[in-house]
């Protein structure tokens, strides 16, 4: 049995996923990183996008997640992905994500110019919906 990594995907509300994996690939601010066992200790910021986990040797043994950005910490074969929002790609509801993109865009257009707090919030919702759409499309959901 090849050496494995323990990978946890944690959101503020719960632990979304935890499992032994062969490799973790995540999107950092600077591009994708692949984490294999025996990786050096690392803390990095993640950009909104995909996190994928490889289980076996064949290309089919992958699992895909969409995250809204966060952090990744590697420590002695344990990888913790901290994300504000995260969802398994198979769980993404394309219909809903599309509707939410449209709705948030409408709301943004109608927003009075002085409500900076709301604008930030809508932009974050928008970015999260778009991230879900993008990763779902890429994986042919």
């Amino acid at each position, binding site marked *: 049995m090849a050496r494995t990594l323990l990978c946890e995907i944690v*959101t*503020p509300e719960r632990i979304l996923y935890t499992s032994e994996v062969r490799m973790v690939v995540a999107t950092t601010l600077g591009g994708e990183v692949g984490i294999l066992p025996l990786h050096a*200790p*690392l803390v990095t910021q993640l950009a909104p996008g995909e996190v994928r986990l490889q289980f076996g040797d064949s290309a089919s043994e992958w699992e895909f997640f969409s995250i809204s950005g966060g952090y990744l910490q590697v420590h002695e074969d344990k990888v913790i992905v901290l994300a*504000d929002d995260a969802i398994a790609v198979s769980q993404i509801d394309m219909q809903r994500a599309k509707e939410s993109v449209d709705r948030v865009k409408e709301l943004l257009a109608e927003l009075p110019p002085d409500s900076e707090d709301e604008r930030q919030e809508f932009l974050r919702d928008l970015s999260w919906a778009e991230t879900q759409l993008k990763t779902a499309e890429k994986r042919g959901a």
Partner: protein
Amino acid sequence: MATLRDIKNRITSVHSTRQITRTMEMVSTAKIRKAQARIENARPYALAISEVLGNVVKNVSDVTHPLLEVREERSRIVLLAVTSDRGLAGAFNSNIIRMTERMMREFTDQGVEVELVTVGKKAAGYFRYRGIEPAMTLAGMSDKPTYEHARQLAVRVMDQYGDCSIDAVYLLFNRFKNLAEQKPESHQLLPIEHSVLTDAEADVEARGRNLEYFFEPTSESVLASLLPTYVEALIYRSLLESAASEHGARRTAMKSATDNATEMISTLTRSYNRARQAAITTEIAEIVGGAAALEDQA
């Protein structure tokens, strides 16, 4: 003197009150469990954030960040008071409100302006009634707070702190100690106290995780984005604790209400029986008296 029917009516009404309080007690018991589970679920994230924070602090020689900057002169501060939307929870809300008022007085006496941010209808209602309009309120979510709510609050106070329109933020909420006990607490939220960082660092070292980390892009930028996340997680945690406390306080309040109702019913039943017996005795006395009078005539 209460008539028999009066007493009977009261017994019936206390009975139905007891039914309601007993149901509320059971509902709260069920909700505490869910709220506790939510606290448990939020723990891994908070732990991981503070672990990463500890690692970063260890690796950054000069820790500076706007949210850490302590200002000597305070001209305006924010009190963030977390209460519930509904009452009937004993002293749950009044404890927080009283604490908020006390801190307001203390700061006002020192010549510091106080701005209020409230969570829950109770605090907002109380202060509005007294002519103090909260600068921001969140309501209608006190028993089911989400991370999004915490973020809204965090963003608001951090923005104000960042542009120097406020100089400190205090968080007041009920900590959930156990099923029967809630403790109102106040904490300084901003500026983030340096002890938070040194504690996180000491914690990392205590667990023997003394490793050299690589940081991407840089340790400074990780720190800069981690601190706001830390504040969000802290607020989220206090919202969750407050939600669990609310159900705990309500359960205790409803339990004693149910007990009181039971006692009242037994007292009332006793006086009902006594009144009934008195009526019967009077009646017999009248009959006997009447009979005796008839016999005398015969």
